């Protein structure tokens, strides 16, 4: 769903830079190691291609709703809980452990591994579990990819507390004492091949650690398994995405290829798919207080390795509990 942004930027709409999606891609890509130089889209065929790219980017940028944390609607969420409960309990046979590890109050940054393509069952299961456990009254936001929020029909997510991934939105959420869920791996991780399903892969994105340090909030790792068994994910299609300049236009570094219901061969997963009823298991780990555990000025790389190791070990343990694919 989302990758944690890294640095404060000039904000126009929605906490993103004025150049819209393109600018955000540059900002996150730079720290992730997957990005391109800003503004390089106008090179090559020059003029015409550059203008077309700019127009598409601008149009999509305008579709991203203005960030307003107040759009989260507790009553709306409460009324949707039964539907989420049905989906989570009956279809995905969800199991969420360790919610008691999340601090009862105060801001907290929850960091999850992400699975399931553009239909992310782990998010549904966790949202239900969190809202049922702490009550819809507790502020809970999720950072999402720009494209998710600009898709027609997905405006409903804003009522659940989903906001575009940007440093400004992150700051606002944490300053409002909210619990914030980020998926640093974002689109890169969510489309990993199914045979890498039991691997936590943030693609080197460490922005979430810098943000946790900046706002001095605890990190709570959230590890899930099962999402990558909801379809047969074949490839991220990174080369294809680069060839089609999707990374510049939509911050998309991947154009995933999968076998999924009902499409069969599914390229892009833009319309989503019907997920197979894979059992989703989620484990919430104890909070990591960065300055208490790593000193006054923690080394980001060291923290990153620590968080990733913890999550990978938990994911391995969850994987060892599963006896069959999909069934769990």
């Amino acid at each position, binding site marked *: 769903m989302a990758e944690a942004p890294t640095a404060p930027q000039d904000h126009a709409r929605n906490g993103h830079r004025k150049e819209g999606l393109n600018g955000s891609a540059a900002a996150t890509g730079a720290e992730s190691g997957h990005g391109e130089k800003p503004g390089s889209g106008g090179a090559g065929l020059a003029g015409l291609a550059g203008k077309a790219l700019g127009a598409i980017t601008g149009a999509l940028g305008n579709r991203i709703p203005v960030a307003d944390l107040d759009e989260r609607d507790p009553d709306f969420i409460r*009324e949707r809980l039964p539907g989420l409960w049905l989906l989570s*309990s009956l279809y995905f046979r969800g199991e969420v452990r360790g919610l008691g590890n999340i601090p009862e109050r105060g801001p907290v940054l929850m960091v999850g591994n992400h699975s399931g393509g553009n239909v992310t069952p782990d998010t549904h299961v966790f949202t239900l579990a969190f809202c049922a456990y702490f*009550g819809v009254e507790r502020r809970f936001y999720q950072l999402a990819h720009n494209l998710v929020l600009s898709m027609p029909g997905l405006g409903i997510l804003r009522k659940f507390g989903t906001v575009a991934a940007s440093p400004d939105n992150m700051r606002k959420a944490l300053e409002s004492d909210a619990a914030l869920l980020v998926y640093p791996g974002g689109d890169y991780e969510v489309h990993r091949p199914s045979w890498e399903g039991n691997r936590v892969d943030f693609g080197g994105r460490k922005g979430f650690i810098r943000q946790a340090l900046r706002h001095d909030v605890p990190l709570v790792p959230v590890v899930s398994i099962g999402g990558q068994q909801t379809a047969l994910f074949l490839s991220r299609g990174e080369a294809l995405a680069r060839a089609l300049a999707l990374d510049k236009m939509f911050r998309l570094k991947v154009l995933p290829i999968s076998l999924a219901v009902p499409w069969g061969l599914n390229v892009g997963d833009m319309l989503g798919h019907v997920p197979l009823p894979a059992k989703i298991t989620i484990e919430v780990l104890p909070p990591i207080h960065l300055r208490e555990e790593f000193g006054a000025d923690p080394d980001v790389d060291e923290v990153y390795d620590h968080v990733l190791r913890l999550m990978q070990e938990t994911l391995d343990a969850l994987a060892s509990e599963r006896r069959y694919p999909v069934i769990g």
Partner: protein
Amino acid sequence: MRVAGQIDIAASPEQVWEFITDPERVLHFMSGITRWEVEGQQATGCGARYRMLMRVGSAEVGGTVEVVEYDELRDMAWNSVTGVDQRGRWRVRERAAGRTHVEFRLSYGVAGAGILGYVSERLSAPTVQNNIRRSLQQLKRAVEHEQLRRAAAERRSARASA
């Protein structure tokens, strides 16, 4: 959705009441309840608040409840303050000397949830009903064992003093 259960316990209402109103004992006999913690300063009586959660399906569902009716040795009822809408009641009545009839009622739901709310309430009812049935059986066992334990302790102390 309204679910209920009842049981007869070979104990006095005082002994039963002691169990069901003590927040520290609730987790010992309530099946499916994963949390029952006092919120605030008041631990019992009208106005006491508890954070309660019950595991139903894939989620622990509940919220903060407040005791709204506290009729000593007879009735204790609570309403939800936050979380899922719910109303619960312990009803304790003496049937005969040393026998007490206990009834537990729980109504829950989500107002405005529509057809999905109706379906989820229906589907969750068997789980909640089983939890209530088991809770009452465990309450009976706990109260009656406590009674036997006290009686044995009294016999021991009587023997020791003799």
